[in-house]
């Protein structure tokens, strides 16, 4: 079984987000780029499955749509243990374009399981994984918090509103993963970092599909009113404020 993990490259989650050109684009000055947190976890899970001989995973590849600027981050994913990488060359913010780029990688290869994160921490779209599944006419399972492989079949636990579902699906399929899929992201070893330098990143050039959406401008969130402090020795006062002032209780 071959697994493809889709990797989005995003600003580090503690980055102070600033915009440039009259709030029409992200100001990338000083931004630290990292692997999207969910993608890091899904890659970790894919590598765990590869380590477990009974799962029958031969190869873990990664795919990314982006420019050369992402390559240092892709090397980090290779250092974690991915075997090889595909980068579809282009600079897209529209989820449909990204999914179409990833679909090119999958059509050209032999992948039994494609993993995506539930969202990317920049545009928070939750779009790419399911779009990709639809483009490839593959089944998909979302909000996966546990993933095992047995006899070419995936056993999945996914979160639903108000509980969990245990699901089975035959490969090939697209899995969209969330928290729980792996405990902690795998840390690259020194050896992994050395090996990553020579692992292949195959660049794929494709004609961009048209975008369906475009960001016109960004806005910072509305500042909240200043916090009103209540005497800790008279904390019950809070409840009457919530009732009378905020009209909540």
């Amino acid at each position, binding site marked *: 079984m071959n697994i493809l993990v889709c990797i989005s490259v995003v600003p580090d989650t503690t980055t102070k987000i600033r915009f440039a050109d009259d709030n029409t684009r992200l100001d990338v000055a000083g931004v630290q780029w990292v692997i999207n947190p969910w993608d890091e976890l899904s890659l970790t899970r894919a590598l765990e499955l590869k380590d477990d001989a009974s799962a029958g995973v031969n190869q873990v590849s990664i795919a990314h749509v982006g420019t050369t600027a992402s390559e240092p981050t892709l090397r980090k994913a290779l250092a974690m243990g991915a075997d090889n990488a595909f980068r579809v060359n282009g600079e897209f913010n529209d989820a449909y374009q990204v999914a179409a780029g990833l679909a090119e990688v999958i059509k050209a290869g032999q992948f039994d399981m494609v993993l995506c994160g539930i969202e990317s921490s920049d545009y928070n779209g939750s779009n790419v994984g399911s779009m990709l599944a639809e483009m490839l006419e593959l089944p998909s399972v979302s*909000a996966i918090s546990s993933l095992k492989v047995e006899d070419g079949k995936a056993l999945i636990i996914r979160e639903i509103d108000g509980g969990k579902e245990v699901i089975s699906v035959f490969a090939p399929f697209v899995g969209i993963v969330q928290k729980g899929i792996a405990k902690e992201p795998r840390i690259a070893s020194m050896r992994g970092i050395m090996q990553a330098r020579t692992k292949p990143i195959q660049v794929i050039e494709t004609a961009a599909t048209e975008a369906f959406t475009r960001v016109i401008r960004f806005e910072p969130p509305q500042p909240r009113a200043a*916090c009103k402090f209540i005497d800790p020795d008279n904390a019950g006062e809070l409840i009457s*404020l919530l009732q009378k002032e905020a009209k909540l209780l």
Partner: protein
Amino acid sequence: MSVLIYAENWDGKFKKLTFELASYGARIAEMLGTKLIAVSIGNVEESELKQLGRFGVEKVIAADNKRLKQFDSQAYSGLIAQLAQKEGAKVIILASNNAGKSIAPRLSVRLKAALGSGVNKLPLSTDPFVVSKKVFSGNAFAQLLLDTPVKIITLLQNSFDLGEKPVDITVENLQTDLGGLEVKTEVIEIRKQEGNILLTDAEIVVSGGRGMKSPDNWQPIVELAELLNAATACSRPVSDEGWRPHEEHTGQTGKIIAPNLYFAVGISGATQHLAGVSSSKYIVAINNDKSAPIFEAAQYGIVGDAQKVLPQIIEAVKELRNK
């Protein structure tokens, strides 16, 4: 032309969320001068379907088929896409929840329709069609142009107020053999969360962080939640330590919620935590460190030891209830 909502049900019943979608859809239909219709999938009684008429839905198409008993994003989106085309839907609205998030992107591909996901208010304009959505985990909003003839929106829960708009509603029962739609996933087991109020549905949430010091100190959090008919939640390290179940973890990598009132007790207010709760209408912070960032996000704050402050609050709620 029409505006179409996917009216999800839970064991045959709609929730407030379903009616939020209808209220939102009704306003968009007004803006476009067209009618609002709904699609329901699964076994929902006619009396329940007709509830949608209170919120402006003029027609509901009810598809019930035993193969649609279990949720499968491919089969569900195939069906909704067919109906959207048949009804000439120009705007399709789903909830930004697990089901909506897995159906909407597939519809986008099938219908070549732009998708605005996690939208929190009415479109800023309908020609051009521009929506506002949260980006960078709540650190900013984006004005997003949906640049295709058909548009899809997923709406954040608890972001749009219910608006009664009673209309005569017709129920159209759809007999479908699901021609061409296959269900390829198999649900083996469903494990329902017992008893408690769902975190994503709760109007009030009481949440504890590492400042609670130990899982043995959770009793006042649980008691306050019970008194307020609230759900309990926690920060990530708390669930990572196994002090509380994973389902309670809120934040960027956990659940994203928007209750009317969020109590953050012993939570420092890291950006990743705020990413999940910053859409709460009110935040109350209880923390013994006056400089904790949570106070910058809160409207009400108490600087003090949670174990001393919570009992006073619990007493005050009991007094209020006894009045």
